[in-house]
C-alpha cells in the first residue's frame, strides 16, 4: 500500500521535474517578452536594452527599468500596484526624463469582466497618455480630480489612479535620490478615497 503510493508519487514527481526543466526557458522567455512589450509601450523611443534597477521607497523596494536613447535617459518604466475591487491592479507607468507620464500599461488585474476590467481599454487608459502631473490632478472626478472614472467602476478607477500616483512617487524618489514624502499624492488620494467611502 505504502509502496504503491510511494512509487506513484515518485514517478509523478520525476515527470514533473522533466516537464519543468523543458518548459523553464519558454516560460522565462514569455515573461520577458511580456515585460519588454509593456516597456516599449509605455516609454518613448529608445535604443539598447532597458536596464533593470531598484529603489527603496516607503520601506518598500520598487523595481523599475531605465531606457536610454543615445546615452541620455529617455524615460523610466515603473511598476506600481494598488488594491482594486478584485485584487491588486498592477500597472507599468512610463515616465519621461522630464516627468511627464508617457503611457501606462496594465500588467495584471482581476477586476470584474465588463466593468472594472475595462481599465485596459483605451477609453480609460488613454487619459494617462502624455499626462503632465503638474497640470492634472491625479484623482477621479468624484474625488475632485481630473480623471474620468469608468462607469460603475469607481473603485477600479481609483486603484489605477493610485497606482499611477505610486509610480510618480517612485519617479520622484529616483530623480531626487530621496525617498518620497509620506504625504505624497498617492497616500493623499488614498485618504480621500476613504473619507469619500465613509460619507
Amino acid at each position, binding site marked *: 500500500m505504502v509502496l504503491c503510493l510511494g512509487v*506513484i508519487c515518485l514517478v509523478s514527481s520525476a515527470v514533473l521535474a522533466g516537464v519543468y526543466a523543458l518548459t523553464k526557458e519558454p516560460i522565462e522567455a514569455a515573461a520577458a517578452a511580456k515585460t519588454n512589450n509593456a516597456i516599449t509601450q509605455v516609454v518613448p523611443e529608445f535604443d539598447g536594452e532597458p536596464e533593470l534597477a531598484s529603489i527603496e521607497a516607503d520601506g518598500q523596494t520598487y523595481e523599475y527599468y531605465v531606457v536610454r536613447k543615445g546615452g541620455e535617459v529617455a524615460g523610466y518604466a515603473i511598476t506600481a500596484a494598488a488594491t482594486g475591487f478584485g485584487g491588486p491592479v498592477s500597472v507599468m507607468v512610463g515616465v519621461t526624463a522630464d516627468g511627464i507620464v508617457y503611457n501606462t500599461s496594465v500588467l495584471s488585474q482581476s477586476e470584474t469582466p465588463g*466593468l472594472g476590467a475595462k481599465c485596459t481599454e483605451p477609453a480609460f487608459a488613454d487619459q494617462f497618455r502624455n499626462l503632465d502631473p503638474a497640470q492634472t490632478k491625479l484623482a477621479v472626478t468624484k474625488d475632485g480630480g481630473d480623471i474620468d472614472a469608468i462607469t460603475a467602476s469607481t473603485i477600479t478607477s481609483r486603484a489605477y489612479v493610485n497606482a499611477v500616483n505610486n509610480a510618480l512617487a517612485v519617479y520622484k524618489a529616483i530623480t531626487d535620490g530621496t525617498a518620497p514624502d509620506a504625504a505624497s499624492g498617492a497616500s493623499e488620494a488614498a485618504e480621500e478615497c476613504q473619507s469619500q467611502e465613509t460619507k
Partner: protein
Amino acid sequence: MGKFKLITKGLVKENPTFVLLLGMCPTLATTTSAINGMGMGLATLFVLVLSNMAISATAPYIPDKVRIPAYIVIIAAFVTVLQFIMQAYTPAMYETLGLFIPLIVVNCIVLGRAEAYANKNSVIDSACDGLGIGLGFTMSLTILGLVREILGSGSVFGFKFIAGDGILAFVLAPGAFLALAYLIVIFRKVTKMD
C-alpha cells in the same frame, strides 16, 4: 459499446455540464467569453484523456484503500504538466484561466470518470471515454461562453458586432446561472430527454 458510441455518449447522453451537472465551479466562473470557455474545456479534455489512460493502466496494481489518493496524485501531476505547458506556450490564455487551472485537480468530472469508468475498463476505452466527456465539456462551455459573450459584451469570439456594452449582468455571476439554466432547458428539449 463501440468506440464511436463511447465518444458521442459524452457529447449528448452523458454531457457533463447539461446532463450530469458536474464541474459547475469552472463552468460558471470561466465562461465569461466563448474563448475562455473553450480554453477551459480543452484544458480539462487534455487532463481527462491522460488521467483516464494512466488510471486505467495502473488501476489493477493500486490497492483499493489508497486508490483515491493515488488518483489525485496522478491527476494533479497531469494538471501541473498542463500548467507548465500553458504558461510557456499560451501565456495570454494562462493569464485568464490561471486560477482555474489548478482547480481542475478537484474537478468532479475528472475524478468521477476515474472512479466510474477508467478503473474498470481498458486503456483505449478509457481514452475514448475521456475524449467524449472532455469534448462534451468543451462544447458546453463554449456554447455557454458564447451566449454570455453575445448577450453580455455584444461580441463573438472577441469580435464586436454592436457598439457599446451588452447586458452586463450576463458577464457577471448571476448571468452565468441564468444562461446555464436556460441552456439546460433547451438542451433537454432538443435531445428529447423529457
